[in-house]
């Protein structure tokens, strides 16, 4: 594993020289380290690049790390990772991604992650994205996440992109069975000429299923972000999506929510708020002794925390 990978791993995951438990580290399209645990088995796919992660039924309290790094330009990494989470298992999955280029060539990671949660399974899925390096080559991360939740299962997805990624197209889709819950928290900051687009599509098929999508974003410089969400309720269910965006400098943001209710007891809500930081918020923090710049930094840091 090279030093850039180690640095990126430190940013996007809990890496401190090693991982405890099951892990798979992907570096420039190759496997740079792998370990299964008695309850979590990681195997290479035979038909395409990527891995299958099998979490045995009833596994509790374990963490799986599957970070991916691209450390130089002229890499276009495409990977398919499938997670099979056994009945009543309760695990945490950390899947950060870092792309780095010091050249004029593009560095891109495209991770296609599919989750299949069996009855009663619970997963906390953490995904942190970052771009680094002084190269003019574009740093791109285009994740695709597909979630299939069986009855009474629960998936909480916490996804963060903190900066340096020139372009990202993030697609997340889910199909939920009876009483299944999907929680998605997304935080994105863009600057310069960066663009970020997120596209959520969730179908609430089962009775009493529920989804909560929360997106917070900050668009600085001349960056642009788009938030698209579609929640379709096909049964008695609850759906909520919320998009809050702060504009700084010449940043721009578009939000296009869609709610589709195909059942009389589908309760679907969307909230969106886009605008610059309220002057009163800055003023309040200035009365605590912060300068205008410090106040703005604190407000943004808190908003994206």
């Amino acid at each position, binding site marked *: 594993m090279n030093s850039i990978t180690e640095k990126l791993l430190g940013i996007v995951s809990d890496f401190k020289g090693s991982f405890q438990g099951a892990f798979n580290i992907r570096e420039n399209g190759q496997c740079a380290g792998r370990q299964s645990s008695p309850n979590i088995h990681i195997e290479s796919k035979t038909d395409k690049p990527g891995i299958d992660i099998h979490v045995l039924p009833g596994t509790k309290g374990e963490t799986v790390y599957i970070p991916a790094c691209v450390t130089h330009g002229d890499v276009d990494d495409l990977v398919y990772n499938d997670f099979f989470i056994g009945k009543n298992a309760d695990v945490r999955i950390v899947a950060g991604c870092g792309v780095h280029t010091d050249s004029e060539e593009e560095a891109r990671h495209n991770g296609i992650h599919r989750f299949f949660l069996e009855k009663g399974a619970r997963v906390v899925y953490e995904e942190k994205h970052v771009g680094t390096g002084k190269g003019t080559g574009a740093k791109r991360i285009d994740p695709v996440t597909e979630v299939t939740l069986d009855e009474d299962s629960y998936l909480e997805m916490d996804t963060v992109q903190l900066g340096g990624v020139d372009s990202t197209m993030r697609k997340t889709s889910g199909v939920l069975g009876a009483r299944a819950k999907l929680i998605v928290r997304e935080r994105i900051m863009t600057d310069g000429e960066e663009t970020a687009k997120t596209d959520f599509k969730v179908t609430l098929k089962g009775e009493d299923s529920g989804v909560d999508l929360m997106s917070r974003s900050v668009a600085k410089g001349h960056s642009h972000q788009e938030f698209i969400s579609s929640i379709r309720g096909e049964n008695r269910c609850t759906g909520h999506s919320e998009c809050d965006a702060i504009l700084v400098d010449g940043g721009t943001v578009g939000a296009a929510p869609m709610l589709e209710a195909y059942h009389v007891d589908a309760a679907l809500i969307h909230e969106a708020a886009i605008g610059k930081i*309220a002057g009163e*918020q800055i003023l309040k923090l*200035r*009365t*605590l*002794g912060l300068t205008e710049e410090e106040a703005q930094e604190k407000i943004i*840091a*808190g*908003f994206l925390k």
Partner: protein
Amino acid sequence: MLKLEHLAWELPDGEGIIKDVDLTVQDGKLIVVTGPNGGGKTTLAKLIAGLETPSKGRIAFDGKDITKMDVTERAQNGIAYAFQQPVRFKGLTVRDILELAAGGSLDESELCGLLGKVGLCASEYMNRELTAALSGGEIKRIEIATVLARKGKLSIFDEPEAGIDLWSFSRLVETFEDLRRQGSGTLLVISHQERILSIADEIVVIADGKVRAAGPREEILPTLLADEKAAICPLGREDVSI
């Protein structure tokens, strides 16, 4: 010592809100500023904290001319200000804002101490975000706690009682009394509440942008109550017949 000399401020249309105010506030006192709505109390407080800039006059604090200092500089010089209508922040928690106010990290017992003074339980509130999920009374009490956390030389509270329930209000009055007893800087409280007026060292009555009366509580409070009984128009312009 806080000294206001010939202070004036107008609305953009030229209407005078503060008109030639002279006022001296001694250190370590609890001053209650009262008077009719629209009389200029909040504007006066904002001029002292630097949220508004006077069109005329001078403000001196601790021997320094602070008239031209901005909000940040005044805060750094020991002036703390509790907004009448507190601001909400998505993302900042109660702990975050109290730590920003205190200028450093606070442990749970310190948070407990601060929030307890406004009748809130730290373990229940410290990790909550300052969003609309908090009620008006809760956000108001947290706002007051931010000013207590600052330990300012001059703490200004703009109608701290507004939106607060009776039980929390009693706790707040005790807190003001404790602060005065401990000599924790000067307290300038804008209020109409008799219980707050009754613990003041001095009372200042602001009406129509001017100081109508100022002096020790013993002197001013009976006149306020007498006015009330005599059914005098609070603006003092005309007798009101009932």
